[in-house]
């Protein structure tokens, strides 16, 4: 059994998580990628909103160029963040890398959604930065769902704090 500290969602045919956030469990919903990718790096096929992992398992969750899932609507965001914060430990991070025009993860939308939804016993703090040439993953070949080049220019980090019920009133 491999030990994974981090998890990447919707990883596609890439190996981003393994290169920059190792040891990382690569996941994607699309089972066809097993044959469609030249080399398939995926460890598990699953929906980002239905993860087959226990609570408090990972320190970092990574989403690169989410498309077809993510923060497009309030309802989607609520389901996704409930699931991610369930498998994440206290004091963990969700890192989202994407293009500012990607409607599933544009920074303004993510920030708005965080304020729109309420997650039981979880606090989320939002930060965003530009991905510039100093970024370690600048030359990494990010791809769309059908293998076209995509250029992410924003890195959003959601800091996750869990408020544990101490049992004291």
């Amino acid at each position, binding site marked *: 059994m491999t030990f994974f500290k981090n998890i990447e969602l919707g990883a596609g045919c890439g190996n981003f998580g393994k290169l920059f956030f190792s040891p990382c469990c690569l996941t994607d919903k699309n089972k066809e990628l097993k044959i469609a990718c030249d080399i398939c790096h995926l460890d598990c096929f699953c929906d980002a909103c239905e993860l087959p992992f226990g609570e408090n398992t990972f320190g970092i969750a990574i989403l690169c160029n989410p498309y077809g899932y993510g923060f497009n609507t309030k309802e989607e965001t609520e389901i996704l963040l409930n699931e991610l914060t369930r498998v994440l430990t206290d004091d963990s991070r969700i890192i989202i890398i994407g293009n500012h*025009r990607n409607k599933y993860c544009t920074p303004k939308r993510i920030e708005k959604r965080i304020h729109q939804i309420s997650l039981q016993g979880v606090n989320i703090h939002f930060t965003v930065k530009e991905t510039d040439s100093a970024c370690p993953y600048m030359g990494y070949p990010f791809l769309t769902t059908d293998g*076209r080049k*995509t250029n992410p220019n924003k890195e959003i980090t959601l800091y996750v704090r869990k408020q544990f019920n101490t049992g004291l009133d």
Partner: protein
Amino acid sequence: MSENNSTLALIRKNIDRLVLSERLRISDYKEDFYSHLTSLLRFHLTVPDEQYHREFQFNENTYMGLEQFILENSDMVEATKAPDDIDWDLADDAKDILKDRIKRLTEEEKSDDLKPFIESTTNVFENWLIYDLMHPGSVYNPWIPAVNILQKGYVYFISDDKDRISQYQKRIYQKADRDTHGNLAIVTRSSKKRKFSGVLADNRHNLQISVYQYLKEYASGSDHAVSLGEIQDFMGTNISRQTIRMKVTSPLKKAGLIGSNSKGFFHIATPKDLKQCYAAHLEKVRGLQGTLRIYEKQAKVLGIENLGEGL
């Protein structure tokens, strides 16, 4: 809430005007569906991407991949650069208004039966709006034909998921060739409750790609135009000339990707080619305008006040 109140008010007014069609006819939306796909394909053909090396099939992955690619790279085909900031609140508000309107029109406020239709239709509308906010009024906006379908009174679900599509329209796959089963399909609903119609996309887009590439290589510029017969020979299939015209050359021409003259078809390569195409179309439009004026005159004779009313 968006602070762009006037734009939102205008969007609301247009959405409030939407009604569902009394009819349920494939011919009402089929051309718009294909035209939407060709408009997306325009970006595949004109924006070079050395990363892309797959055989093209119009399935859900390609549809979604192209959607992302176009919204992120629209500046590469538009003459203008999109503003850095988009009014995402406006897109959110517009989507909510449309969702409510569709629920009310379909009388499906309480059930989840039409969820895929509401999602697909609002997703298309949102893409159209985002593109329009980036490049106002652009004719390259590939979601214009898809929004037309909504304006004609149909809500729709676009997908390649055979099981989900078959829940609404079983016959789509029974009638189609096996080699198209992985393609995108559109299922629509009008005002008729629990009744659906649909179309499974054929492989015309693969033909469009190969003919476009053939013309680009062997018929670049109006001086090198090739005849329909030569295109038919190149395709090496038993597709009739009429079908080639209908499914391949006319859509490519309509998308502004190729031109034609008395000798045949060509890839628009130079300003001279473009001028020639423009002049040919202008002449046709002027001819049609003349006919319209004659009808208007006849209307006066017959005592019709406004011939175009309600059109």
